[in-house]
């Protein structure tokens, strides 16, 4: 079966106006000293993060670092055991790692359902807008189960965008996508950020974080090790693990984590 690829189109949604609840006018979402425990295991140990409008923040770390847990707390799905989370008045869109949609419904039916559940005044217009945005208009009538993983992820993201959120949280959005689909995904996400939407995504791919994240937050075993630009992360890795300076960035990053006890 041949896959018909359609790039994400660059129509970023207009950002919402932020309310006065935030500590700074330019902060779209903020977490302070967040702690989360699962039984005796501490999944997050006092993690803090703040992101402004249009910022693209990558959360990177090995498996079990606490990336999904942090995003779930930012999305309001899980509650922190300590610390606090605040966001601007605009909705926070959440795109889980595994596509959260109904595989036995068509593309259009999924978008319509969630638009209706969100109480859109004109759900059809919202669904149309997302079909246009994701380039899946021609496949609107297809059952989602028959679509490729990449296209399912597009719909997954489109559902997260239905509420036109000021902040979009993406949990490992490129997992399972081929290089072409990945490139189109990041083209689309970058365009969203360019339009003012705050995008926070998790990944365990250091190159992806370095390439697309304007800022990088490094998590390991629930601990925040680094928060800064990709360039600053390279610098930190070089100074922390000088013996790996001549090797590729991924190897150097692993050495950096080991130096930090992870």
């Amino acid at each position, binding site marked *: 079966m041949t896959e018909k690829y359609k790039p994400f189109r660059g129509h970023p949604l207009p950002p919402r106006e932020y309310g006065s609840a935030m500590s700074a006018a330019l902060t779209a979402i903020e977490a302070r000293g967040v702690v989360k425990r699962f039984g005796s295991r501490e999944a997050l140990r006092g993690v803090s993060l703040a992101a402004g409008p249009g910022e693209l923040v990558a959360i990177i770390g090995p498996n079990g670092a606490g990336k999904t847990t942090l995003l779930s707390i930012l999305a309001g799905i*899980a509650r922190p055991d300590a610390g606090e989370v605040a966001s601007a008045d605009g909705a926070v869109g959440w795109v*889980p790692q595994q596509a959260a949609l109904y595989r036995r419904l068509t593309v259009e039916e999924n978008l319509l359902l969630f638009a*209706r559940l969100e109480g859109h005044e004109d759900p059809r217009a919202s669904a149309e807008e997302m079909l246009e945005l994701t380039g899946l208009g021609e496949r609107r009538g297809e059952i989602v189960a028959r679509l490729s993983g990449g296209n399912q992820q597009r719909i997954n993201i489109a559902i997260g965008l239905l509420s036109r959120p000021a902040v979009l949280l993406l949990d490992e959005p490129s997992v399972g996508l081929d290089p072409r689909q990945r490139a189109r995904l990041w083209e689309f996400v970058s365009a969203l950020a360019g339009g003012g939407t705050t995008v926070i995504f998790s990944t365990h791919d250091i190159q992806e974080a370095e390439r697309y994240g304007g800022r990088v937050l490094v998590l390991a075993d629930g601990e925040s090790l680094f928060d800064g630009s990709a360039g600053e992360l390279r610098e930190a890795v070089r100074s922390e693990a000088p013996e790996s300076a001549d090797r590729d960035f991924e190897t150097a990053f692993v050495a950096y984590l080991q130096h930090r006890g992870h």
Partner: protein
Amino acid sequence: MRGVRWLLLKDLQILRRSPLQAVLLIAYPILIAVLVGFAISRGPEDPRVAFLNEVPPNTRISVGGAQLPKANVEDRICEKVECVFVEDRAEAEEKVESGDVLAALVLPYDLVNKINSLSTLTPGVPEVEVLVNEENAVKAELVDDRITSLLAQANLRIARRIGAEGGRYLGLLVNGGHFEVLGERIPILGLRTTARILAAVTPELPPRLRPALEEVTEFATQARDNLNVAKPMIDRLAQPIAVDKVAVGGESPPLEIFAVAVAATLTLAFVVVLLVAGSLALEREENAFPRLTRGLVSSTGLLGEKVLLGVLVGLAVTLLMLVGMQFFLPLDLGRVWLWLVAILFSAGALGAAGAALGAAAREVRAVSLLAFMVTLPVAFLSLVPSGAVGPEVFDAIRFLTALFPFKPALEAITAALDEAGSGMGGPLAHLTVLAVAYAAIARIALRRFAAV
């Protein structure tokens, strides 16, 4: 409520999109209705029994030297079972072994001789032979019951016939008449006539002879009176104990109504429990639950939607089944509103139980298996009558079945269908309590769903 409406439509859309599920939901109740309909409109077929009668023709049972009329045991047995007449024992054994017949009944050649010997000083033991293939316990039990019952009936008929003949001879002895021996009519005076003749001639006799004759007259009178009493006793000897059935502990519905109620409740239970549990687990399997409960719909709302889905589909399917039953057994349509009440309460409680199962398991397959593992044994146990097992075991069964909505649902639906049945109040209250309890369990179990 807005969210619940759209989710309900979504679930119905998914249901409609799964042709196998949709066909099963429609075909299943129709199939059940047809099967139960045929089962209750036609009696169980007579079991096939091989019959070998080795008794020589024209051999009769004789009592006191006189032959009884033919008892027609063969005809009577073949009224109750489908007799397959065989030529010899080998053929009978072959038919039993091949499963062509349930059993073989052999009346041996000396059966009548042995019956006749019962009234002699050297009585034999009359026996009939039953050949069975005990390939499984249920079949063996069935054969045992049927053959024992047939022979008991045959014994009873023979005993009655002997009793009747004995009574006739007593009548002859008391009242007089004629007795035929080898084609010759022999007059019998009888005790009554004897006493009358003696009483008439006594005054004509010399006084010294009268006391002795009066003693004979007295004996004849006493013998007549006592033998008159003996006749009904002989009649009762054939069946000394009669059954007087008195119903206590509530009236049971007619068997066909009960069969319809069982079929309807089974249909309702499986459809509702599987649908509610499966659709709730599907939200988890599709990863949609966290997305939905992020402000789009509350966990309680989601639970309510699933139960509502089960109630609506269960109501439609069960009503379809009951309407189908009309072709076989006219149900009282004037009680339709009672059907609706019983089905709605039952579906609500079964739906809540399904929601608890669906919230406890994470995958649709696991939930389906769990639903079957719970519903099927509970349904089976709910049909075990008291007295069929020991009192302790029955108490345990009663406790277990009271924890699941099947039994009160069966009681409510039976009461709704049966005009003379017991009230619906108790079962409906039971169902309400179970619905609330299971909904609470489901709500607590749903917290596990939220865990990422």
